[in-house]
């Protein structure tokens, strides 16, 4: 156990020091994408993997987070709130604002969407995200329609300007670590066990005294909040958002893929998934341009068919089996 802790501490230190040694911008960009991918996966996994509610609509939360952040930074009235704490609109507050908007939406949505279960839940969430897209396209007064929103000023956190890959690296690193810690904390508490019970058998969970609906809504809110953080970061990093960028089915699907490929229902799965898929897609992007998604899709299919527990789950199983064999050998000798 302690050894595990020291490994984790060591990796965090390495990640913190990394930008001191990496000057290659592309490599830094890769790391940023990986960390973002980890948040994608953790977010989806909390609801889809641990709670068993397979959503095809997480782009909705990503999108609301992205737009919430952009609005906060660009609208005069909202950004004043930020200015109280800072000389200009604060990006951290903006991201939190996006997250709170998402929580509000999911709170309202949660009371009805959980009438659905199984594949119907997937369809329902897909429809909700599409509705989000249509609204973003048409509610021009708020979203600027299909033209999207461009961030003109360089946001800065206190004295630190968010400029250059290194500053974004640290921002997303912190967000990612917080995300993993957050999910870890949920899963080791009462709530985590309740979510697992809901995933395994809703009716049994109810009979065991678990208020399943309330916990599903809580899981949805927490999961959506994490997606919104990712969306908020995306806004800052890219500096421009449009409905089709952030509300696209593609985003929802990517979250699912990272989780499934890495290992659904495990804390480390999305981490592994984000690393594997990001690296693979960046490599293949240089050969196939946009069509790199073929590799994405193929990998997903192979994983579902041949290692349904995901890459991390598979390796863990192998590792445990080996340890057992070695322990048995020890006893024998």
């Amino acid at each position, binding site marked *: 156990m302690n050894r595990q802790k020291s490994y984790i501490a060591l990796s965090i230190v390495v990640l913190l020091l990394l930008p001191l040694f990496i000057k290659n911008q592309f490599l830094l960009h890769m790391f940023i994408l990986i960390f973002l991918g980890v948040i994608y996966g953790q977010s989806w996994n909390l609801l889809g993997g641990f709670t068993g509610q397979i959503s095809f609509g997480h782009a909705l939360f990503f999108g609301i987070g992205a737009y919430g952040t952009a609005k906060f930074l660009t609208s005069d009235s909202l950004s004043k709130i930020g200015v109280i704490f800072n000389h200009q609109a604060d990006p951290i507050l903006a991201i939190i604002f996006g997250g709170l908007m998402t929580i509000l939406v999911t709170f309202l949505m949660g009371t009805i969407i959980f009438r659905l279960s199984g594949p119907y839940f997937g369809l329902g969430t897909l429809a909700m995200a599409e509705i989000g897209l249509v609204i973003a396209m048409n509610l021009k007064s708020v979203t600027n329609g299909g033209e999207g929103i461009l961030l003109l000023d360089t946001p800065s956190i206190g004295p630190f300007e968010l400029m250059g890959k290194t500053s974004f690296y640290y921002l997303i690193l912190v967000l990612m670590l917080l995300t993993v810690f957050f999910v870890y904390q949920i899963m080791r508490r009462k709530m985590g066990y309740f979510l697992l019970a809901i995933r395994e058998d809703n009716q049994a969970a109810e009979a065991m005294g678990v208020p*399943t609906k309330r916990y599903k809504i809580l899981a949805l809110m927490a999961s959506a909040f994490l997606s919104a953080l990712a969306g908020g970061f995306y806004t800052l990093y890219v500096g421009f958002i449009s409905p089709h960028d952030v509300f696209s089915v593609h985003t929802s699907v990517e979250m699912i893929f990272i989780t499934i490929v890495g290992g659904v229902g495990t804390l480390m799965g999305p981490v592994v998934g984000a690393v594997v898929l990001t690296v693979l897609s960046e490599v293949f992007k240089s050969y196939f341009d946009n069509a790199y998604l073929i590799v994405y899709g193929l990998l997903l299919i192979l994983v579902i068919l041949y290692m349904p527990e995901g890459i991390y789950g598979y390796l863990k199983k192998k590792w445990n089996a080996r340890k057992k064999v070695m322990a048995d050998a020890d006893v024998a000798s």
Partner: protein
Amino acid sequence: MPMLQVKDLTKQFGGLTAVSKVSFSVNEGEVLGLIGPNGAGKTTCFNMIAGAMNPTKGQIEFEGQRIDGLQAHQISQKGIARTFQIVKPLRNLSVFDNVMIAALSKSKDISQAREIAQEVIDFTGIHDLAKKGAGELSIGNLKRLEVARALATLPRLLLLDEPMGGLNGKEVDQAIELILKINKSGKTVVIIEHIMKALMQVSDRIVVLAQGEKIAEGTPEAISKNEAVITAYLGEEYHAQS
């Protein structure tokens, strides 16, 4: 005043009346047997009492309070636990975690839930299985897990739906022993069971349903001689062979 009182309970599924105006009561401390041929409406009664389904008509009172229409988890909080005829283990979790989660809804934190779980596991004698995945258990052990999980919610009233279905002779004897032990520890029990000999042994009173209606009620001796009951079971394969 009886602990549980069911009045004119009725459940319709579309055109089918699965339970029709059934009334009975359960006294604190007793074991009440609920029997009837297949499809008589026994499980449906449990579903309504436990809050898994709302009654179409009728009332359910527990310890003087109306509980019909409450959700299943609220009923669990009130102190009623049920087991499922078709077992519902949390397959990918360990036996211990299955029991522990059941204890969680009544405990302030995980460590308290662990203590309760450990006690229940010792009480029900599934010690050796605690670390196993619930998905790997035999049907006999799954039935015991159902009971253990129900007990872990610290109920005062326990609804057991065919806890002996699919068990072999030795396991049935163990189950009888366990049920008597649970009853002795102060819990009230309602049990649905097709194995007559076992049911006669554990029940203080028996209620008989057939085609959704209550056709008889009384002591085990009286029920075994009751004409209406014997007729209801005629034509049906008689389950009392064991």
